[in-house]
């Protein structure tokens, strides 16, 4: 971003002549272009509320609930899988059921977990839109939804991983999962070396969002 500056001998446009201050106003949300989809979304929401399908409060609660999801739930599952092989087996079979066992609501959309090993590094993408296991790792980062990531992760995954600072040896298969249909995916990262003796909570604190997407691996000295 632009560094703070006092002198104004540079030529950038400060916009509105009636605005007496040196910098333009921060645009309001409403100053952006209004798309047809934005109008339709608002219209449908208003109709559903008018028809008492749900209330405005319920809609707000749902949005708040979605926004409140974080990678912490997924991290807790990873830590449990590292410490409990039986749990890991059940998680590999059915993430949603395994989540329920430890009091996590992973929703009804089936989630599958891909286990990283010394031979396989998994990474998740949705080339068609932005499918993502939101209930376990929160809202997707903007880059996950970008066309750049969505096209290049299947085209040149190692180059994209390198841009995230992740170098995968050629001896290891890079396995890209394109979630095009009804399943959602998360990655079970490898437990970092040097994490012996940590309890489950401490292990969970090592697990990052990006490691569960597969764009990073957990380093021995990983500090969150």
């Amino acid at each position, binding site marked *: 971003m632009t560094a703070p500056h006092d002198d104004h001998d540079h030529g950038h446009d400060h916009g509105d002549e009636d605005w007496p201050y040196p910098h333009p106003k921060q645009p309001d949300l409403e100053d952006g272009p209004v798309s047809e989809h934005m109008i339709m979304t608002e219209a449908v929401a208003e109709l559903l509320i008018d028809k008492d399908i749900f209330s405005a409060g319920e809609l707000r609660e749902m949005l708040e609930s979605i926004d409140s999801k974080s990678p912490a739930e997924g991290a807790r599952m990873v830590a449990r899988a590292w410490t409990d092989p039986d749990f890991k087996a059940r998680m590999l079979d059915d993430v949603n059921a395994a989540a329920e066992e430890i009091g996590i609501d992973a929703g009804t959309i089936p989630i599958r977990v891909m286990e990283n090993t010394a031979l396989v590094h998994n990474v998740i993408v949705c*080339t068609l839109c932005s499918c993502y296991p939101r209930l376990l790792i929160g809202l997707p980062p903007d880059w996950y939804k970008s066309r750049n990531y969505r096209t290049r992760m299947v085209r*040149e995954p190692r180059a994209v991983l390198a841009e995230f600072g992740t170098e995968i040896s050629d001896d290891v298969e890079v396995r890209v999962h394109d979630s095009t249909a009804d399943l959602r995916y998360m990655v079970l990262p490898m437990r970092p070396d040097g994490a012996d003796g940590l309890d489950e909570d401490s292990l969970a604190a090592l697990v990052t969002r990006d490691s569960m997407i597969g764009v990073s691996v957990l380093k021995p000295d990983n500090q969150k």
Partner: protein
Amino acid sequence: MTAAGVSARFTEGDRVRVRAAYPPGHMRTPFFIRGHVGTVIRFVGTYANPEELAYGRDGKPKQPLYWVSFPQSDLWQDYSGSPKDTTIVDVFESWLDPLDAGEAS
């Protein structure tokens, strides 16, 4: 395996070719695998047909869905990563032809 009366035609290890079809509408089969040969990793259940759901219909009969694995070096002629690298895509059965039948025709 069957579910809702629909039986899965393919099983683990089957070689399949993704139909090189380009119909209009809401398709969940990405262009980059159309016409390519892959290997069925597993049958992952039956799901409402997204091509129908997109138009407000009920999506029935449900369609078998598979994980299909493609070697990256087959998908992209100039792929520069490791020859071990693969992409797995979720593909509905209606988009898959058995390799033998496809190759014989």
